[in-house]
């Protein structure tokens, strides 16, 4: 941004109107040569390699199981992306999956209908999200501390309500619905819901003022506040939404495994956050895109699926996923550093001048911002 507003000396003598296009990179380059596309590219490579090397990987059955496995992570990763882009985090999502699963089961067991039970679970999700949101915005506590607290709180409630028992007598129609496939494609019906939500979140994040506000908050909450973004309201809304989506994932989780238990989805928050970060979202906020996150979730899912089929043990799968995550985070930091060293902002890209003093000044200016 600094490069556009900076009073850069234009060495070209002709008085040409300065346009963004002269300074920005071409569209194809901005779309394709990104962190997000690197992850999607890696995903495609992994799929191709796995199909060729791992027996029985390239089948619709694998695809079906894969989607069923990643659905709860994919669901929660959508709002988590928005929350992390604002520079906040929500660690209580997996506990909320467990709590909503328990509420869903208990309400159904009490004799109410499945839709009522689902509604009750979603309401609990909204309430839990509101608690997180208010503690972060109204009280002003750091979300890391708040959601570590509610992580324990929600899980404690979940295990406390059902103890070591489980509710398992869900009607077959509903549990089957969570697993049914679209025709012979092997794609579960639930993916339609995921796809709709993904589109909604992508539009909100990338094509609305609300979404631009999310990025602005992540880059500088104060600056965003002064430029008219309602910072607290935005964050509160996001925490409520992530609570509701976590509850939705909890309902799906319960139906898929036909079992409502307090310890359902233990540890899933880290899988979600790992996938979001792998997808190119900055943990410091302000940077990231939804297609990268979806790519990240699928990449981890495909890797795990392929390695399992290749009889690699769970420990090794965890090691490979961990190394991948560390490499991806490290590589983006290194690339960002290299780019900041080499970038020549302020100089129209189509003019190949080598104006050393200008370069130095502009780099400094960028360093300050």
């Amino acid at each position, binding site marked *: 941004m600094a490069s556009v507003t900076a009073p850069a000396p234009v060495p070209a003598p002709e008085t040409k109107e300065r346009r963004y296009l002269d300074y920005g990179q071409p569209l194809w380059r901005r779309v394709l040569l990104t962190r997000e596309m690197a992850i999607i590219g890696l995903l495609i490579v992994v799929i191709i390699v796995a199909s060729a090397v791992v027996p029985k990987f390239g089948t619709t059955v694998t695809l079906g199981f894969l989607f069923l496995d990643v659905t709860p992570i994919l669901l929660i990763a959508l709002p988590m992306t928005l929350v992390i882009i604002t520079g906040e985090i929500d660690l209580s999502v997996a506990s909320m999956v467990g709590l909503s699963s328990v509420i869903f089961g208990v309400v159904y067991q009490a004799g109410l209908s499945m839709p009522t039970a689902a509604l009750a679970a979603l309401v609990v999700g909204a309430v839990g999200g509101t608690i997180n949101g208010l503690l972060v915005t109204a009280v002003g506590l750091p979300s890391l501390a708040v959601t570590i607290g509610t992580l324990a709180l929600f899980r404690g409630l979940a295990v406390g309500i059902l103890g070591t028992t489980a509710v398992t007598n869900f009607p077959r129609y509903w549990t089957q619905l969570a697993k049914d496939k679209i025709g012979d494609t092997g794609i579960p019906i639930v993916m339609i819901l995921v796809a709709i939500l993904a589109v909604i979140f992508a539009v909100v994040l990338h094509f609305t003022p609300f979404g631009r506000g999310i990025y602005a908050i992540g880059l500088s909450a104060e600056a965003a506040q002064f430029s008219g973004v309602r910072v607290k309201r935005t964050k509160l809304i996001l925490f409520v939404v992530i609570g509701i989506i976590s509850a939705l994932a909890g309902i799906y989780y319960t139906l898929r495994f036909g079992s409502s238990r307090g310890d359902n989805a233990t540890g899933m928050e880290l899988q979600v956050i790992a996938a979001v970060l792998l997808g190119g979202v900055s943990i410091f906020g302000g940077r990231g895109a939804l297609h990268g996150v979806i790519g990240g979730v699928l990449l981890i899912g495909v890797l795990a699926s392929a390695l399992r089929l290749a009889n690699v043990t769970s*420990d090794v799968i965890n090691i490979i996923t961990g190394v991948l995550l560390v*490499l991806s985070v490290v590589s983006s930091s290194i690339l960002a550093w290299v780019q900041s060293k080499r970038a020549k902002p302020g100089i129209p890209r189509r003019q190949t001048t080598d104006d050393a003093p200008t370069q130095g000044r502009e780099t400094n200016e960028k360093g300050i911002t």
Partner: protein
Amino acid sequence: MKFGNKLRTIAVVAALSLAFAAAGCGGGGDSSGEAAPEASASAEEANLAITFLPKNLGNPYFDTSDKGGETAIKEFGGTYQEVGPAEATPDAQVSYINTLTQQQVGAIVISANDKQAVCDALTEARDAGAKVITFDSDTNPDCRDLYVNQATAEGIAKVQIDMIAEQIGDAGEIAILSASANATNQNAWIELMKKELANHPNIKLVDTVYGNDKDQESFDKTAALLQSHPDLKGIISPTTVGIAAAARYLSTSKAKGKVALTGLGTPNQMKEYVEDGTVKEFALWNPADLGYLAAYGAKAVITGEIKGNEGDKFTAGKLGEYTVGPDKTVVLGDPFKFNKENIDQFDF
């Protein structure tokens, strides 16, 4: 020059994919993954590729049981494989079951983390031709072909009363240190122990206390028991946490050697207290035998030797002949007693 950086990105990506490809090839090549279908071909009709799926990997109990399974499978010439999740969460086994379904193994021998959560996946596996044998921890009975039970509640209750009777000379006050007041298993055992005590008129059960399966609580409850019942001759703790905590208390108290302690424990926890004389004998089943029997059960189901009907018989190698009971269940037998003579042979 920006493009150069991007090229670098692509290079990193390519390197990562290569790393994965190498890992993928390595994993597929040297493990028994490709052996599964081959085994089915060489063993003609019966697919003796048997996979053990414990609650989680890296758990000494399941390492022992699965090793027993491996021994059995080698004896009858099948293919042994062990897979499992890193953590024992309710759903974690599902993706492994799905994978095994795709690999078309002959049988899945599983200790279920959740009675219900694995059920649908196991049903799919059975529809695809795999046999499902549960051991240690059962699923709902309609999700599996056979359950290999480590011990019956009656057997567990009886062995503990027998041991305490023997250790205190069949007379005196005893107490029970259990897990929590609403632990289903423990309560069932305690009820059966009370019935069993009718055969020992001189033994008097004076108290039942609950340590909630927490080490410190169990430790404190043991101390309290000894204070409130000065004539106490013995303690039964039908939970592995309780017996270890009680032994730790007794081993440093004046009551060491005077108050007998027995119950259900694991050898690694109890070794030092058996060696220092605090505990004479305690019981549990032998996980290696359990795995061994489960493997033979799997073979019998695969070959059609048993259909899972009550009264079906099959031979389990060195363990001898077994009969299928109600609910497609086979019981390993009486609990195994651990004492100074045999405790060094176990590591779990």
